[in-house]
């Protein structure tokens, strides 16, 4: 009868010091195990089979004599590693990355640059000057914090697979304001030849694989690239794959975690958990312990960090990189943050969350404000200089917009190129058909905006 499950009260039994074997140092805490429908079990009874190890090929584990029903709440949430508090104070001095003034200033300025460019490009979409835009507000530290490790541990040779909200990685690596804005305009200077929507950046020189819209598809790809790279002679590069917590629900995320683990791929799976996938809050996205909570299930070393703390991201990434390169195994890093801006220019996020909530994350909990507080403490911050810097960036961005929007679009024939490595016969025929039609109907095509 099904009534059994009703009558018996779920009783959580806290077993004394039931330690889970060999977890990473970060959570060697006591685990508790609950068991449903069982009144009193003593630890001794449960491990009556102690010493009998399973020989099932699917899992190595001890036998127990009573049903052990592991409840999600019995596993402690993975802690969030942070270095800076909101006032910019380093809590544990052993965690001070001791970055030079120049490095910290570059971190800060890159964040400011991204933030300033975001504001202007967001507005320019609002004015109909570009078709689409996505800001990085609130998540600047994840991008910069990761890449600034290049000063110490990471190099440009490390290959990035991103989602679309990682422009800061490009800023740090040296993608120019001109390159960003040319891509948004899809003009003849855009390396992508105007084929993709705005913010779908890519750069071969900077090892930043071109962004595509389908979510999570880059994840198993990053794993495959890491596998191929690890086979290279004297390989000294790893792969970093960015994705949001929403994308982590896709089947491709599961594929990537599992392939990375079973095939021992040196890839850092970097989740930006910003609380929202468009309007869907994280609690409607999953019921487990975030994305980090899944790492151990796949057998992957895992860490969770405060994504608004640039030093925490920096230290964690350095640790991850050392680990994946040394062990030739993957790592999962979950950076907790808050998506301060709207999802995109096609979204008004106040329809599903309060302005007051956003304001907290846009001020005291903002990564730029935390780093600024740190710099103030170190006397590395000069208000006037920073104001000049912002003014200068604004001027540069505005000027570049007016230049980029005047540049011609690529030749319309580029529509047919790069489908294949060459233009096959059937595409040549179609190109000629279009050519003839353009000649016959010149006034109906915007040919003058396109390179001849």
């Amino acid at each position, binding site marked *: 009868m099904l009534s059994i499950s009703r009558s018996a009260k779920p009783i959580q039994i806290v077993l004394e010091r039931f330690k889970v074997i060999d977890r990473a140092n970060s959570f060697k805490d006591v685990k508790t195990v609950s068991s449903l429908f069982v009144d009193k079990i003593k630890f001794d009874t449960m491990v009556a089979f102690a010493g009998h190890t399973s020989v099932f090929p699917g899992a190595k584990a001890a036998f127990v004599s009573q049903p052990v029903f592991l409840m999600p709440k019995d596993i402690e949430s993975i802690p969030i590693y942070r270095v800076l508090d909101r006032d910019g104070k380093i809590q544990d001095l052993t965690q001070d990355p001791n970055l030079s003034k120049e490095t910290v200033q570059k971190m800060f300025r890159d964040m400011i640059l991204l933030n300033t460019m975001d504001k202007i490009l967001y507005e320019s979409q609002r004015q109909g000057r570009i078709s689409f835009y996505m800001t990085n507000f609130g998540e600047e530290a994840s991008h910069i914090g990761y890449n600034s490790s290049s000063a110490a541990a990471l190099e440009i040779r490390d290959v990035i697979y991103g989602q679309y909200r990682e422009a800061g990685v490009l800023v740090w690596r040296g993608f120019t304001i001109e390159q960003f804005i040319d891509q948004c305009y899809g003009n003849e200077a855009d390396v992508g030849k105007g084929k993709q929507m705005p913010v779908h950046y890519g750069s071969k020189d900077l090892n930043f694989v071109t962004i595509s819209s389908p979510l999570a598809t880059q994840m198993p*790809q990053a794993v495959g690239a890491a596998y*191929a790279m690890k086979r290279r002679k004297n390989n000294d590069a790893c792969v970093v794959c960015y994705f949001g917590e929403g994308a982590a629900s896709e089947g491709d995320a599961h594929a990537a975690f*599992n392939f990375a683990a079973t095939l021992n791929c040196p890839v850092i799976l970097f989740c930006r958990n910003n609380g929202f996938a468009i309007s869907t809050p994280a609690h409607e996205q999953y019921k487990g312990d975030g994305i980090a909570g899944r790492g151990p299930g796949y057998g992957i070393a895992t860490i969770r960090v405060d994504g608004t703390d640039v030093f925490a991201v920096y230290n964690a990434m350095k640790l991850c990189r050392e680990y994946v390169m040394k062990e030739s195994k993957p790592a999962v890093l979950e950076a907790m943050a808050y998506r301060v801006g709207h999802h995109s220019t096609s979204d008004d996020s106040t329809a599903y969350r309060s302005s007051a909530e956003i304001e907290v994350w846009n001020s005291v909990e903002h990564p730029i404000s935390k780093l600024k507080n740190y710099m103030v403490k170190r006397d590395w911050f000069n208000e006037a200089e920073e104001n000049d810097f912002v003014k200068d960036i604004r001027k540069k961005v505005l000027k570049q917009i007016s230049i980029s929007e005047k540049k011609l679009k690529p030749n319309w024939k580029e529509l047919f190129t790069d*489908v294949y*490595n060459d233009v096959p016969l059937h595409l040549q025929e179609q190109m000629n058909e279009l050519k003839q039609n353009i000649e016959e109907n010149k006034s109906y095509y915007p040919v003058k905006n396109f390179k001849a």
Partner: protein
Amino acid sequence: MNRHSRYLFSFVKTNKSVIRTSHFTYYPDPPTPAQNKQKMNMFQAINNAMDIALGEDATALLFGEDVGFGGVFRCSINLRDKYGKDRVFNTPLCEQGIAGFAIGVANAGATAIAEIQFADYIFPAFDQIINEAAKFRYRSGGIFDCGSLTIRAPCGAVGHGALYHSQSPEAYFAHTPGLKVVVPRGPIKAKGLLLACVRDPNPCLVFEPKVLYRAAVEEVPADAYVSEIGKADVLRKGKDVTLIGWGTQVHVLLEVAELAKKDLKVDCEVIDLVSILPWDKDAICKKTGRVIVSHEAPLTQGFGSEISASIQEHCFLYLEAPVKRVTGWDTPFPHVFEPFYLPNKYRCLSAIKEVIN
């Protein structure tokens, strides 16, 4: 997804009646002029092609479900021993993962030969193949690509494969710019096409008719060679009716051509299209004035539709009868009704009578 594949494999291996009672008679390719030849069936020819690919390119990797021990159809047998576990390996059971992983391998400049255990199970990888592999070069303006990627998948009727071990999904992929799609008709072609796909700088799909793995035996040139992608083969000359097919169906059509000659005094030309995308328009137009296209896949939106429409557009004045399509029915591929489902020689012969009169 090898739920039934081992069973299928052992069935094909032990039960010769599958081949005896199959719906086609195998017509080997004419002997090649090559000096150094070896008798091989199709899985051996594919194995030989992959052996060559792995031998000549140290970056080449071969992976998929159960590829390590030799594959459920024996295509990768002995390759792990020869090239090592890091080059020939099993993946977890996840088609989207296999395709995505393969794209990444190719992004990094290495050669990826990925196997999907049955073409019926390629659909979980559809997004990776259509949205990613096919568009990688285009969307990046040519700065990134996954051209060194080849995906192999056994396809087509096998006598008793029912819904999920019989499909011919080539038309789904033919609608996707950026891909190349080929189907071999036997061992010589399979080896040449596979090597051509591995070397081609574009992502390629090879659909291998699984019923031919053991049934088709030919004298295959032992050295490396390629069979051109995008080019059809005229297997039999004729002046009255053009019969177009690919894969196993080519052998049905060759037999039909003989029957038509004997019973109807009709002289048929038989063309193996070989390459579905890009396909060889020049080979099929303006010849006999009567055309029959035949494939195992269902009629509606099958690749026969594309061929028929194109012939109608380009060869209208040469046509003496409407283009006829003889295909699988618009149903899922059935188990016990397979003999009634397939576009067999009798249906093809009726179609010839129809276009002649």
